[in-house]
């Protein structure tokens, strides 16, 4: 964690403070107080608190968490599921890993509360294989919680049963997409499903399912303990709460930090991360991971909250911030993004399967200065069709980094193209 006077330590309050493998230490820091409180309340009341808090999903889309819970709670079914999406695969993003390694019990408590709220007795944590330490700590936490009566049958004598299982992914980026994740959890090839139906109606095994990101979930015990009003005081009106940003690239102090939503990029880069690490000037910021937009320094004063970004057609994504200085090549950056998506496309739908290859081929041509005039135009047209017609969010966003790079750094692209002709 980056040390900064701007930093808040709400969801990261236990990180590096307690022994993440000890339930006793967790209990000493108000651990499981939220669950105890929850079990005295009606599920509906819990859902209301979460709705009132205005908590929005931290996985990228920013969908209101309480609304998801509300829909799932109101769908009748013999079985429902709660899933934690811990398949953190967005390049430059490591916030979930920090939370799971440093405070696994919070996540487990949150999932248990979610289960109670929507009427589910079974939860899964879908986690990427590379997160060995997280897996070990979560497994340990689940066992300890079971032994102490916080998981399993008749939790704390309430009559509520809930258990958790860890499911390990096999390294596919697209399995972070919720419906592909369901397919993978069901033992099938991890390809996204067509929506609707949405998970709250028909998710895992066709049952109503709430699927939340790790960071979203760890907010839950805090909100239950401290109340919706407390939560709403942090951040902005439409984006309450904090967000963990992960900074990488040419900054003096890369790393993760928890900040209120609404912090500006300038504050983040210059105050928190100590500015550019070299003598060069800031050239480009990519916001939100590989699928995020590549921005010029003109955007430094934008407020990092869901709505301010949406107005400009941008997205917070996972909260990853990649900072590049003037020594970096935009073309090379775009090419590496293209390579990434070409590798990660599942191949199911035409625009993404063919489009991600074309992006890579064209950028490869530009990079080797063999491109023609038409190539930039082609990239832009490709982007439009990928955004508009791809089946899942992967394809819909696989061109955003590249098209925004072209938009903001057109000169550089043109110079490569011209030299190539």
């Amino acid at each position: 964690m980056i040390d900064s006077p701007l930093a808040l330590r709400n969801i990261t309050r236990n990180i590096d403070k307690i022994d993440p493998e000890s339930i006793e230490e967790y209990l000493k820091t108000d651990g499981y107080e939220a669950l105890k409180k929850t079990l005295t309340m009606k599920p509906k009341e819990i859902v209301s608190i979460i709705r009132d808090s205005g908590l929005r999903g931290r996985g990228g889309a920013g969908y209101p968490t309480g609304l998801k819970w509300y829909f799932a709670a109101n769908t009748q079914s013999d079985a429902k599921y709660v899933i934690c999406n811990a398949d953190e695969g967005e390049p430059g993003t490591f916030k979930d890993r920090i939370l799971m390694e440093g405070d696994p019990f919070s996540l487990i408590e949150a999932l248990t509360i979610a289960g109670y709220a929507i009427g589910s007795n079974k939860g899964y944590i879908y986690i990427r294989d590379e997160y060995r330490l997280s897996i070990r700590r979560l497994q340990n936490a689940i066992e300890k919680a079971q032994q102490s009566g916080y998981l399993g049958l008749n939790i704390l004598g309430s009559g509520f049963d809930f258990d958790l299982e860890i499911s390990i992914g096999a390294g596919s980026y697209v399995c972070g997409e919720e419906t592909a994740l369901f397919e993978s959890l069901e033992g099938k090839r991890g390809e996204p499903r067509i929506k609707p139906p949405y998970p709250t109606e028909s998710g895992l095994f066709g049952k109503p399912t709430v699927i939340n990101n790790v960071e979203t979930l760890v907010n839950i015990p805090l909100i239950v303990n401290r109340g919706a009003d407390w939560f709403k005081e942090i951040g902005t009106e439409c984006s309450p709460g904090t967000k963990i940003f992960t900074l990488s690239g040419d900054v003096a102090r890369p790393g993760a930090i928890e900040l209120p939503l609404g912090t500006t990029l300038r504050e983040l880069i210059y105050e928190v991360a100590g500015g550019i690490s070299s003598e060069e000037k800031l050239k480009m910021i990519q916001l939100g991971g590989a699928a995020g937009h590549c921005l010029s320094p003109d955007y430094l004063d934008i407020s990092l909250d869901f709505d301010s970004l949406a107005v400009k057609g941008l997205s917070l994504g996972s909260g990853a911030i990649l900072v590049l200085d003037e020594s970096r090549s935009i073309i090379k950056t775009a090419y590496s993004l293209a390579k990434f998506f070409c590798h990660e496309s599942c191949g199911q739908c035409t625009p993404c399967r063919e489009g991600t290859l074309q992006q890579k081929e064209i950028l490869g041509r530009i990079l080797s200065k063999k491109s023609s005039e038409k190539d930039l135009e082609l990239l832009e047209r490709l982007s439009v069709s990928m955004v508009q017609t791809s089946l899942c969010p992967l394809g819909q966003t696989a061109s955003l980094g590249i098209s925004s790079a072209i938009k903001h750094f057109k000169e550089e692209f043109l110079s490569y193209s011209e030299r190539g002709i």
Partner: protein
Amino acid sequence: MSKRIPKNFFPSETESYRKEQLKDTRVGLIIDGEKVWVPEGSTVLDAAREISKDIPTLCHHPKLSVSGSCRMCLVEVDQRGLQTSCSTIIQEDMVVHTETESVIAGRKQALKLLLSDHPLDCLTCEMAGNCKLQDYAYRYQVTGTEIEGRQRGYLDDDSNPFIYREFDKCINCTQCIRMCTEVQGIGALTVEGSGFFVKVTTEGDVPLQDSPCVFCGNCITVCPTGALTAKPSRGLARTWEREKTLTVCPYCGVGCAIYLETKNGRVVGVEPANGPANENLLCVKGRFGWDFIQHQDRLTDPLIRKDGELVPVSWEEAIRYTAKKLKEYDSEALGVLSSAKCTNEENYLLQKFTRMVLGTNNIDHCARLCHASTVAALAEVFGSAAMTNSIAEIEDAKAIFIIGSNTTESHPVIGLRVKAAVRKGAALVVADPRGIELARWAEELGDRGVWLRQRPGSDVALLNGLLHVLIRDNLIDEAFVAERTEGFNEVRELVKEYTPERTARITGIPEEKLVKAAHLYGEAETASILYAMGITQHTTGTDNVAAIANLAMATGNLGKENAGVNALRGQNNVQGSSDMAALPNLLPGYRKVSDPTARKQFADAWGLEDLPSEEGLTVVKMMEAAHAGVIKAMFIMGENPMVSDPDTNHVREALNNLDFLVVSDIFLTETAMLADVVLPSASFAEREGTFTNTERRIQLIRKAIEPVGNSKSDWEIISDLAKAMGYDFAYENPKEIMLEIASLVPAYAGVRYQDLGTQGLQWPVPYEGHPGTNYLHRDGFARGKGLFKAIDFIPPVEEPDENYPLVLTTGRILYHYHTGSMSRRVEALDWLVKEGYIEIHPERAKELGVTDGELVKVSSRRGEIVTRARVVDVTDRDTVFMPFHFAEAAANVLTHRELDPKAKIPEFKVSAVRVEKVE
């Protein structure tokens, strides 16, 4: 062949969800300014097609789950932007535009991308002219050169003779995968790899022949490009040069509609047609089994044996000679075998010829060897001897009980209906001594399936045992039994003895499985029984069928949709040849020859005083009479008793003992080789007429090519022969013969060629214009009340003993057909299964010291043969199985001639044999 239910066979969560959304209530939306009302839960694509909007699709198929991956079916929805119409569920007052600028741009872009890596070899591509990609490229004027692409560079797979695979032409629409998984229930195909390099292929990318593929070719049917093509047709004709003739598959009794494709008088391929039985599906034989038609072995000229040699002669000479010879014998010395491969018209004509010209009832055909017991039993208990319900109804049964039918191999396309029912949630009970595909499926289904592995020949005990449980557990439809049937009390009394415990002892089936099966069958709202030769080919065949009828009547599963007693008939026209009375005891329409009124009616129609009144000889009896010298001359049309009949050595002696044998056939079969006169017959592709399939559907077969050589249709041959013998058989065409049939057979009374169209008609068709009958006994049984028959178990005639310790059971396999005269001349089928074999259980094989692929000697009291061992876990350790298609390793050398006393059907399913290693 895989025997497991493939992964992803059952509807996905999304698919089930979509089905649940579909309601009867209609919702209105606006498409291109036009208001359209469609059922709630429909997709935009459904709605648009309702008003004939031509929305392009590459991955959509109405029979398959929604994929939504090609992105061609884009439409623009107000407030929502571009949506794929195949996956977007309509909403009240939705406003949809199907061809806006952005829609077209999206489609064009998808096409450009697809074509960027597509080999643009349309000049030589097999599918040019019938390729959706090509059509859409034309429609949107995309040339394929817009985007510089690269090809994946996968090598073609031409390692099997059925399906040619060009991976670089694959657009990953996955229709083939979904067809193979969801419809065919095989799951041989999958997606390998990811992103640009995805490859639609087998798991592990092995050749098809090393995968569970059954070569049905249904993947070819749905492939929108040239990625999958029928190898035997490649290079023979461009798609636009192919003349298509709608006709009916000549193999089994399912009666699949096919298009026979020809160019310049040569057959170049088969495509499935949307017939009521098959709905565009086919099996390996229907799709690929056509190259026998113009095979070099076809008989082209009549042959007469001169100095021991068969030499070509003119038709005049052959007919004159045959007529002269036949006239030399008394009626009782003459015997005729008709053919279930021939048309209704030809069967009618041959029995007319036999009764009128030859003056005898000595006519029979292979129905004797397959469903004589069905005819005998069902005529007695229901009054009508046929499959009660329709093929399409099987799909909607809530439970299916299959007994003695290896449906997916013997009636493959009906097998698909069973799988479709399972996919929809039906329970499946399979009783079979062999671990056939559907038996394994039933086991895999858990709570809603069970496999009963009965000892061969113990079916009556099994069926009685099931009825016992149904009565014990109050699963009887008492109202149906009381109102619609008679004789139940005796049955109730008799089956008291068949407790699960005793039944288990006789059949070898565990008690709990019996109880489970009875409940799955008895508790279903509609339950359908399918059975075939495993039931009928026993000395107790008639009993077996009657016991099945008991079960169905007791549970009220008759006279209603999606239920019934469904005899699956083996030959393409075995139902029709029985209807036409190519039988020794019946006149057309199942009237008894002993009935003077019936005889009078036919005699009047044929301008005779009377007809022979004495019942004639059945197939096996005819052979015995020939052996004994009582029958001296025979006319055999399109049958091959040298392979098909039991106890081959005896048949050979019998035929050799004849004075005079005439055979009409398309090939010089094992039987024709023994003949004095051989008449070259035209194949189904060269003649007209009708076939009646197993569900009583009378369908037109249409002439696609001119007869090979000087061959003639059998109706012409019979007419010429009758004329030469002084009788006026003056028919212009088969249509005229059908009019005569209609005037004499009530079930066919309304059959007119012009009404048969593409759908045919299911009998009874009591009057002209009648729509046909999809299920029988709706308002009452044909005989009035359904008759329960109390039937006790009798063990098979030949049980294993010290000398012959194993039970041999025989049957059909997927890749061959009957005596092999057609299928073994099909190059591709021959490549796949070249020779006969015997299935031996691994434990038994070990005991015998026999390994897989080794030669073994199989002997019975009748004879011995040498064949190859196939060591597989299909039969149990006391049973062995042999397919009966292979003359050089003929299973029927081993079978015995003991007959069912009523139906006179031989017991092909149980013979005692010994298997020894050949040193």
